[in-house]
């Protein structure tokens, strides 16, 4: 093995390996290749010194440059936050109405509100804020608690029937299934459906008018127009949170459902809630 063997044809040294008389020439590697190879080794060594590389028992070598992808993320977030700071500060100082009146701030707050909405609100209200049965559509012009910028802000800030907030909006329609005869429930339900022009039995509805006046008008008003002070919905319009058919209305009379929305001020802060209010107001139904 160790004895030197020169190939006769090419005059080149061989590696000393032989297979059935075939020998491998020991040609040198191209110089550029060898240099590149050494450069990669040097690079790898320098890299392990400069950047986090070696795992230790409970930690790792940090590297001379102090680089870390978490720090990078933190810096990027701080940068983004800083670029928003000027506008966010302006939003914080103004009322929702003032923000809406200012073109630049409205554009900023609408975008910021849309982002906050996607994270916190779409779970119930849907990604297009169109809601679903039991969860209000925020695009339309029907507002249980008012559609003015300040009303929307208050609703988002303190929530509805939210136990953790003393100033939350509360309304509780009694379960009339326990107070009225089943026949009376059907009568009053027919009457309510008739108010918005739905399909109904005219005779039943006529009898239901008296039941409505005795039991419901106190909150929903004599004409069934609702009362925003109490969160009592308008029963004469085309928008129904829990459905507009006779059965759905009757069910709501017997055992009303009471949706709950958390108050967001504590979790998101006042500025974000303002931005959300601006966004909701811009969806087309704001008053």
């Amino acid at each position, binding site marked *: 093995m160790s004895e030197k063997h020169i190939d006769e044809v090419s005059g080149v040294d061989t590696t000393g390996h032989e297979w059935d008389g075939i020998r491998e020439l020991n040609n040198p590697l191209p110089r550029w290749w060898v240099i590149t190879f050494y450069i990669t080794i040097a690079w790898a060594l320098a890299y392990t010194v400069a950047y986090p590389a070696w795992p230790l028992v409970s930690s790792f070598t940090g590297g001379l440059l102090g680089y870390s992808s978490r720090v990078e993320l933190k810096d990027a977030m701080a940068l983004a936050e800083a670029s928003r700071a000027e506008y966010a500060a302006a939003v914080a100082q103004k009322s929702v109405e003032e923000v809406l009146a200012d*073109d630049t701030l*409205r554009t900023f707050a609408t975008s910021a509100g849309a982002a906050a909405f996607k994270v916190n609100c779409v779970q119930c209200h*849907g*990604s*297009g*804020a*169109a809601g679903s049965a039991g969860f209000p*559509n925020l*695009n*339309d*012009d*029907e507002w249980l608690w008012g559609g003015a910028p300040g009303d929307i802000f208050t609703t988002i800030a303190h929530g509805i029937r939210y136990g953790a907030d003393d100033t939350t909006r509360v309304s509780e329609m009694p379960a009339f299934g326990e107070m009225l005869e089943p026949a009376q429930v059907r009568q009053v339900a027919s009457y309510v459906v008739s108010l918005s022009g739905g399909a109904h039995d005219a005779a039943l509805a006529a009898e239901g008018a008296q039941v409505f006046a005795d039991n419901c008008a106190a909150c929903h008003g004599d004409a069934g127009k609702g009362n925003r002070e109490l969160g009592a919905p*308008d029963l004469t*319009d*085309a*928008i129904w949170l829990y459905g507009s058919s006779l059965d759905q209305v009757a069910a709501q009379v017997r055992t009303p459902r009471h949706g709950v929305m958390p108050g967001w001020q504590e979790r998101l802060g006042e500025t974000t809630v303002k931005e959300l209010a601006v966004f909701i107001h*811009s969806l*087309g*139904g704001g008053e």
Partner: protein
Amino acid sequence: MATVFDISSRAGEVERLDAEAVNSAKVRQPLYAARKKIFPKAVSGSFRRFKWLVMAITLGIYYLTPWLRWDRGPFAPDQAVLVDMANRRFYFFFIEIWPQEFWAVAGLLVMAGVGLFLVTSAVGRAWCGYTCPQTVWVDLFLVVERWIEGDRNARIKLDQSPYGTRKLVLRITKHAIWLAIAVATGGAWIFYFADAPTLLADVVTGTAAPVAYITIAILTATTYTFGGLMREQVCTYMCPWPRIQAAMLDERSLTVTYNDWRGEPRSRHAKKQAAAGNAVGDCVDCNACVAACPMGIDIRDGQQLECITCALCIDACDAVMDKLDKPRGLISYATLADYNANMALATAGGTAAIEPARVHGADGKLSDRIRHFRWATLARPRTMLYFAAWSLVGVALLWGLLARDRLEVNVLHDRNPQFVVLSDGSIRNGYTVKLLNKIPEPRTIIVTLQGLRGAEMSVIGIDQPADRSFAVKVEPDRARTLKVYVSQPAADVAGPVQSFNFVVEDKSSFETDTYTASFEAPQK
């Protein structure tokens, strides 16, 4: 600079130059070969003069264009040619292009391509020989080199001499000037992308954007390397065009041709050979054509990939022919068809060796049967077809640019939710309406609903009650995006999908544009 090896030639005698083609077939070419240095000799003549003119025009266009002004009013830049990346606008004299009109640039590229086909099929590689930036800049760099170091022989001697003070001074001076030209080349490029006077001040004071300096640095490096150091190697090894070109040429394309039917048999001792009774061609093998060639080739080896048809060998050879009192055009622009006809004449239809007597009269003038270039050759179906295609694209482009809208409306229908039921039962759809004001003046645009019975719209940010028509102010040369809500009373809703138009109109210029949108309602 003193020319060292130049032996002044006696009248009627031609100096023979020691020149060898870099791609000579006499030497076996290895797959990888180190560059052979080329020292092109200065020539004078009509093609050289034409090349000076082309160089002046092309360099002039390149360096001066950004400094031309063009008044577009107070709301647009006054630079005649400007690629405004930041605002996504391209200005070219009276034309302003928005990103969505970039097809016009594609059209220009098609025209450039077909134009190249046209020129190549008619007059061969005229692009390579006269107008290609590589050729023009190499020519410029050679002028500098010749000015500093002298002509061919002086340069060869300098190159072979060991480094001393003189050589060092000459070399440093040359490279310094080259670098200065390269910096100016890179520097001129950036002026196409910003207001030239402002940018120049910024660049000089060091306050320009980093990208400006990076661009200058990159273009300086490429200009210096390609124009000064690599020269002909760029054409021979890097450029794909010489390879493509072969497909563009046919037997009636003009190419720089060595007319061996009158040049052969070449002889350095013509009189002696003639006295001995041997046939003697017009070529005296003086190598003037090889010495003049910036590509370092010998045109007498025939058509070859390296030849950029700069025609400097024609000038060099014509000067020699004049001196020998022989007709010009031993090397000339000729078509392959003419060359073949003349060759057939000289070889008696290919049956014999080249016999100069067959193409020359007794007085030494060329025979009347020799075919020469006629301009009519340029007009043939192939070139006409290229010209027709080129013109067609040009006319279409011009028509497209002149007839395009300067006021446009684009509409995006909200998809989530597709519609909203309002408390009175009416249906509302949301739209993002984009108004494009493509002129550099502010305008008031009237946006109107057309169709959709009973519907009205309201615009977010415009404090005005719902209506069928809105007046909207749009900034000069800008697009304005509006959030528009269109509501239709329940009684008027005619089906789940109705189509209607957003019509925009500028009352002062009578320009209008229409977008057909759809209005969606719940299934009944």
